[in-house]
């Protein structure tokens, strides 16, 4: 179900080398803002990501069913823990906010225990803000029975635009 897709850019090594340096500033439209207890920023206290920066994170694929769609869907995106590592997150919880002001707290342990994806493509189609884009937090629910629980279902935040590390 879960497969590692080739990391297109050698971003992993780049982040390793410049762990404490500032992030490059976004050039295009900002799709995601990360704030709170992070050590790497590029816009005052926050880390802003445009599409190029998002797509530069190591890509992963995930095939899973969801609770709001039919059948197995294939998702493509980055691992939440990679993002948190990139921004030097130092906290236990994130507060995820969606475009429609949906706000949910998620323990960071979810991202270390499971390969939780922030997907920007579903079935080879880019997720748009008129659907569930720009980013949809997707859990590998088919691989872990405990994730097939209503208490995990509400953490599948779509139209994700802001993460606060706490």
């Amino acid at each position, binding site marked *: 179900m879960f497969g590692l897709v080739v990391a297109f850019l050698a971003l992993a090594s780049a982040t390793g080398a410049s762990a404490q340096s500032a992030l490059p500033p976004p050039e295009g439209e900002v799709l995601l803002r990360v704030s709170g207890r992070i050590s790497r920023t590029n816009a005052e206290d926050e880390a802003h990501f445009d599409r190029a920066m998002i797509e530069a994170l190591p890509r992963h694929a995930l095939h899973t069913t969801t609770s*709001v769609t*039919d*059948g197995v869907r294939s998702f493509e995106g980055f691992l939440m823990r990679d993002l948190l590592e990139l921004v030097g997150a130092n906290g236990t919880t994130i507060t995820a906010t969606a475009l*429609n002001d*949906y706000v949910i707290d998620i323990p960071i342990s979810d991202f270390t225990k499971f390969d939780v994806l922030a997907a920007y493509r579903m079935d080879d189609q880019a997720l748009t*803000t*008129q659907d569930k884009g720009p980013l949809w937090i997707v859990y590998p629910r088919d691989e872990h029975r405990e994730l097939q629980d*209503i208490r995990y*279902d*509400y953490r599948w935040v779509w139209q994700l635009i802001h993460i606060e590390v706490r």
Partner: protein
Amino acid sequence: MKSGRNSGFAHVINVAIIAALAVFLGVALVKLTEIERNMRINAAENMLWVIYQAHVASLRLDSEIVRGTNGAQDTDVERRFDVLVSRLTLMREGPQYRYLETLGLDREFLSLSDAAIDMGRAYGDPPAGGAAFPVQAHETLQRLNAWLARAANAAMVREWNAIGERLDSYRHALWQVLAAILGIMISGAVLSIRLVSTLRRVRSAERSLRAARELEKELERERAVSRFYRDFASTISHQFRTPLAIIDSSMQRLSRRGERVTATEIAERVGRVRTATRRLARLVERTLDAARLDTGQIEVHLQSFDLVGLVRGICERHREHTPGRRINFVAAGRSGSAEICTRCDPVMIEHIVDNLISNAVKYSPPDKPVEVRVEAHDGAALCSVRDEGVGIPAREMPRLFERFFRASTASGVPGTGIGLNLARNLARMQGGDIDVETCEGAGSTFTLRLPLVEEAPNGGSAAGEEFAHREGQAVP
């Protein structure tokens, strides 16, 4: 036969109860598994939330558009529109759309959501929808909002009904589980009661079996006693007949001869009658001894005594009584001492040794010697009496010490079968015993074995006279 059928029936009942137990357990397990499986809640069932979110998105878009018509410059119509489209798209997808179908609201929703999405596209066209746009958009959203309110209402009713049904099914399943548990408890209780009652029956059966065995033993004892008295009567009467016949014939002869009887003849007849009378007296004495032994009237008075002196005295008396017989006495005392000290009742010892010597004299030819030997051996004081007489057949050895038993080789010799039995009983009462070695036709050796003691005898080496001053204590 009846009990066999009963136990078969009981077995069937037990199996049935155990089967019932298994069925109840199975039902409980299946029902609990069902409950567990039904306990998962699907997010799609949370339709009320989905509709509410869409309603909020629609209302906010509407208010944003109204703000724009009122001249506000910082409106966020596009974003609000995107959110609404996202919510409507969600509702047009798989589980959500099927839910609307079950509510019968799907067709109306399709046209309303199509209209809303088209309206958004019109806004996107330059120049920002035109003048007619806000009015049209407001109307479109109003219709959508009215539908969303109705849909929320219907979803709420459906969800509450679903919750009610689910709770009903849980309750039903739980009742079944409770009934199964009750069944398990009842079967278990019945099984336990049956087990306890079976155990009780087994115990009482064991008790009556024990009682029956007791009774059987009692009966066997009674039979032995009756047999004993039968044997006793026949033996004694037989033994009495011979001396009585001698007495009778002597008296007859004397009376028949009348005046012609000579002094010599009288003396001879008197001698015979006296011998016969002595025999009768001895018989009565033996019989009384046996009876006393049986009724526990014989007491043991133990004291330390020199066996050598005691037995030597007995031998001397026997020599006087049967002058023609050779009775050799041998004492093999321990080095440095002529005495062999033992703890015994001298009266009993005399009785025993007397009996053994009499037997040896009775059951061996007159020309053969009888050897009496006293020795200490291996912690025991031994007194053996050896004859070269008829001996005892090996097959009769196990019965030799039985009362009234007389060896086949003893036929023709008067005897009651009491002597050896009494002798062994007396020996055992003193912590000793009598053993026998024999060879048919070559003779027998009877050995009295008594416990050896170290201390000096308190009665000296003399025998007879001291018996009157016994100091030993009675053995219970």
